[in-house]
């Protein structure tokens, strides 16, 4: 099952395990942008989607019938009245440790938690009221908390532009953990915080290892601080306390999504984009795969257009299923949804004309 968050609502696509043909339903929450979805497979599966209504405010949609219908939860995240901030967008929804435990990252960058499946929400003060919070600045997409990764008592957050924040006490307190994470867009390329992190992933089988797609594209910079050739694609082996470049061999270190193989922590996928246009280099889209933790990369483009295809893939618009032979999926801002069969060896277009795609999630249910 796929959930596809688009500019015009959320779609659900289903296929048998062969994944040859997908049946599409939707849009749900029609006409309203959806920036995050979650297929929650704990117990009876539930689907969630943020519905980011520019007229009437943010909603969280929930489906308890595998995406045949969606209803608003009783409440959406909201800042306390005395806080002074107002919710602009909902960027991430992730399962917590308890059956109805949810975490939610929003814009302006803050974290909320629900213990009742999304019917009520509490702001998490350790990061939302962090001493850095009022100093973060929005990137082009807004000041968003887009990545929430739980790892036992550790929690990793990705904020654009704020950087990577680490909690080692279950989300009570956080600290900036950006050693080696560059910020090419300012004279000091290695600040304590303020990096434009695009996405972070991890794998259970590789404790301490994280992969990051950061805001690269500064190899040619000739201003103060000098060139920053390799700040875009990074790896950490110490729970995110320090990071090093793994961008060597890629056509560009700019991109938005990064995905790790479900059965092999050494296999990681990125989708490099031209830094200036944020479209596929040379109009020829390709996913790049490393099978050795980022030491080398291979171009995967069989089945993808060879020319004249200048689409963009956003940070949450690429994912991978966890079947024995996984398939990769990515959605474009021009409304195409692609499947990369055999771990990305063969690409096919599943849907050619959806609304602009923000988010793609997959689960076997």
């Amino acid at each position, binding site marked *: 099952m796929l959930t596809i968050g688009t500019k015009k609502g959320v779609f659900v696509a289903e296929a048998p395990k062969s994944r040859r043909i997908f049946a599409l339903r939707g849009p749900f929450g029609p006409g309203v942008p959806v920036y995050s979805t979650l297929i929650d497979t704990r117990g009876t599966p539930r689907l969630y989607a943020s519905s980011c209504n520019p007229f*009437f*405010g943010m909603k969280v949609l929930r489906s308890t019938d595998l995406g045949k219908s969606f209803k608003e939860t009783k409440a959406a995240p909201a800042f*306390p*009245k005395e*806080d002074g901030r*107002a*919710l602009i967008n909902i960027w991430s929804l992730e399962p917590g440790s308890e059956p109805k435990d949810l975490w939610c990252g929003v814009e302006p960058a803050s974290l909320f938690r629900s213990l009742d499946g999304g019917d009520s929400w509490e702001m998490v003060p350790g990061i939302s009221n962090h001493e850095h919070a009022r100093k973060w600045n929005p990137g082009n997409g807004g000041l968003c908390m887009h990545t929430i990764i739980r790892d036992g008592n550790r929690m990793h957050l990705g904020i654009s532009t704020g950087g990577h924040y680490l909690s080692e006490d279950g989300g009570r307190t956080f600290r900036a953990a950006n050693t080696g994470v560059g910020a090419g867009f300012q004279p000091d390329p290695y600040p304590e915080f303020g990096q434009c992190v695009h996405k972070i992933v991890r794998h259970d089988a590789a404790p301490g290892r994280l992969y990051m797609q950061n805001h690269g594209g500064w190899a040619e910079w000739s201003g103060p601080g000098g060139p920053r050739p390799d700040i875009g694609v990074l790896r950490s082996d110490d729970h995110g306390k320090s990071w090093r470049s793994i961008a060597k061999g890629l056509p560009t270190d700019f991109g938005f999504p990064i995905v790790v193989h479900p059965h092999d922590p050494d296999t990681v996928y990125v989708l490099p984009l031209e830094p200036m246009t944020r479209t596929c280099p040379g109009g020829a889209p390709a996913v790049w795969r490393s099978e050795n933790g980022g030491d080398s990369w291979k171009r995967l483009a069989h089945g993808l257009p060879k020319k004249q295809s200048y689409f963009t893939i956003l940070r949450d618009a690429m994912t991978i299923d966890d079947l024995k032979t996984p398939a990769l999926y990515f959605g474009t801002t021009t409304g195409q949804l692609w499947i990369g069969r055999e771990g990305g060896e063969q690409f096919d277009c599943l849907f050619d004309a959806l609304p602009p795609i923000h988010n793609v999630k997959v689960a076997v249910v």
Partner: protein
Amino acid sequence: MRAAAEVTIYLPEPLRTYAGGIVELPIRAAAVRDMLGRLEQTQPVLHRNVCDETGAVRRHLNIFVNADNIRDRDGLDTALKRGDVVTIVPAVSGG
């Protein structure tokens, strides 16, 4: 201080679900700001759709008193008189 007047709020279709399905909501208020305050007390879910957490009217909504956009009168301080119809309308925006 101006006395509260009986006015009617006309709700567009997307907002009716947050007010039990009604189209017109009678309310007593002296000005639009007062009306929104009363709405927050009596219809908090509906109010959250009209105003954000800080109390500001959502950016892409327009409020009319009869035929006048409150922007062209006194904003939230626009006075209300008995029989006025307050219409909440999504702005013409998007793509």
